[in-house]
């Protein structure tokens, strides 16, 4: 399932305000430091309000990154909240061999049929239920990050968990850290492609 992370990988996250997508993008960037990679994580600033569709972005590379413009043709798109797909074309500008990772309980073939996305690889994971089970609330960001790490092979599950322990451990109570680790672990295992 691993994708080539040599060269420059551009990622776009789709979510709604308040679902933690910006945190996930930043965490991904920090995690890539473990692999001695170069990175950017940046949100698209507009009128920030809870529940409105938002986008944020990552650039990852084994080489120094010097482009400071927006990302319009991402290789990877992560859909944190499937309901944004009703109003936002999440595949916009994607490369033909791009990867879509969607939070949904449908399998990849079904979601392809429902969305009409042609080409591209589709992966799905039920991050909503994973987060409800693990955290007791709808916070699908870390499970989606787990799915992304699994699909890209950017970081092993063990390294990702160790990172969460040390990084989240400084900011959140132990219970929140533990629950997020469970959520990441499950999504890492359960994400499936067609």
């Amino acid at each position, binding site marked *: 399932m691993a994708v080539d992370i040599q060269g420059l990988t551009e990622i776009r996250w789709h979510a709604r305000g308040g679902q933690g997508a910006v945190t996930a993008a*930043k965490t991904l*960037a*920090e995690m890539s*430091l*473990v692999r*001695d990679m*170069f*990175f*950017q*994580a*940046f*949100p698209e*600033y507009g009128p920030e309000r809870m529940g409105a569709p938002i986008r944020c972005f990552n650039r990852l590379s084994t080489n120094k990154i*010097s*482009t*400071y*413009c*927006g990302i*319009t043709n991402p290789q990877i798109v992560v859909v944190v909240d499937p309901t944004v797909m009703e109003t936002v074309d999440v595949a916009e500008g994607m490369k033909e061999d791009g990867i879509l990772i969607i939070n949904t309980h449908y399998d990849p073939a079904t979601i392809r049929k429902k969305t009409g996305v042609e080409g591209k690889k589709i992966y799905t994971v039920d991050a909503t239920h994973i987060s409800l089970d693990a955290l007791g609330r709808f916070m699908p960001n870390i499970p989606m990050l787990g799915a992304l790490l699994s699909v890209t092979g950017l970081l092993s599950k063990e*390294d990702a968990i*160790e*990172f969460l322990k040390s990084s989240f451990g400084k900011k959140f109570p132990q219970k929140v850290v533990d629950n997020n680790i469970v959520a990441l672990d499950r999504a890492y295992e359960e994400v499936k492609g067609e």
Partner: protein
Amino acid sequence: MVIAKSNTLALQGTEAVALAMKQINPDMVAAYPITPQTEIVQGFSQFVADGEVDTHLVNVESEHSAMSACIGGASAGGRVMTATSSQGLALMWELLYIASGLRLPMVMPNVNRTLSAPINIHCDHSDSMGARDAGWIHLFSENAQEAYDNTLQAVRISEHPQVRLPVMVLLDGFIISHSLDRMESLEDSTVKEFVDVFKPEFSLLDAKTPTCIGAFDGLYGYFFEFKRQQEEAMRNAFQVVKDVGKEYGELTGRPYGVFEAFGLEDAEFAIIVLGSAAGTVRHEVECMRSRGIPIGMIKLRLFRPFPANELIEAVSHLKAVAVFDRSDTFAGGMGGPVFTDLRSALYESEKKPLMVNYIYGLGGRDLPVELINKAATELEQVAQSGQVKEKINYLGLKE
């Protein structure tokens, strides 16, 4: 699990600047929030609250007060800092001239954001360009690393006995201020040694040497001479900026000059640009050069004072130059501030390139690689044909 190096960090531009301020450990910081600068003073306030610095933090009620407090603090012999953006810088207006006129060293990161109207919180350089003639030194940064490095060097430049002028460190709003980037930090002890202890020439608190600062100086005083000397200090700043940049390079492996040239020696035409766009331009210039296109570029770091002599030397052999300006002068066809300065600087040169201006990115409008390529391709046409079709161009308009 291996974390690359302990000094390799993932920081936003604002966090990088706040870290530099923490390591500088100024005597006084005046704090007032404004987007997109807020996280600088917010982060620094946290360091104060956590007891990580000895700084006297002054929470003020406006930017006008922030700069007033800095003027007071610097007059009292303190090493002082504040940070601002956009409307905040505009509100400091009259004080900016007082800080430089009193020859008070201080460092102020300004996160570049446009000025309203229409209301807009995003990046362009019109805020600091508006303060172009206020007698401050302007250092532009491409990314978080440079914002950090510039903040540290600004202390030394500002306090140099031959300069003694306030310095603005500029970084692009949101694009750099709110983007998480990889950067290298220095050890606290290294910074402490580099910035050393501020030795003010005069201090209001020095009771043994009573001093009057900011006295009235009318028709029969020395106002004119003060101003002439301010200009002399700006001229002195060229060498100081270079010396400090060289010393910083020996310390860190990241040397700084007044600008950074790329591929100019064998280029026939080149782009000159400030701030974060320089990174994207360099990317495109590298791509074009790999296809054998004779293009080069200059990333201007020092905008005030304007390094005219070095720029003339760097570009006079070129057939054509495109200046990218992220602000306009509204002068009715004269172009952006960097364009007008460079054009004026080249007036006496026997050999000089044809010049075109591209105004871009106002109010945060994106500058993608495709637009840079479009401008570069038009520039190649200018170089080949020897003719400028359109002198002032607006890159990426929707109209």
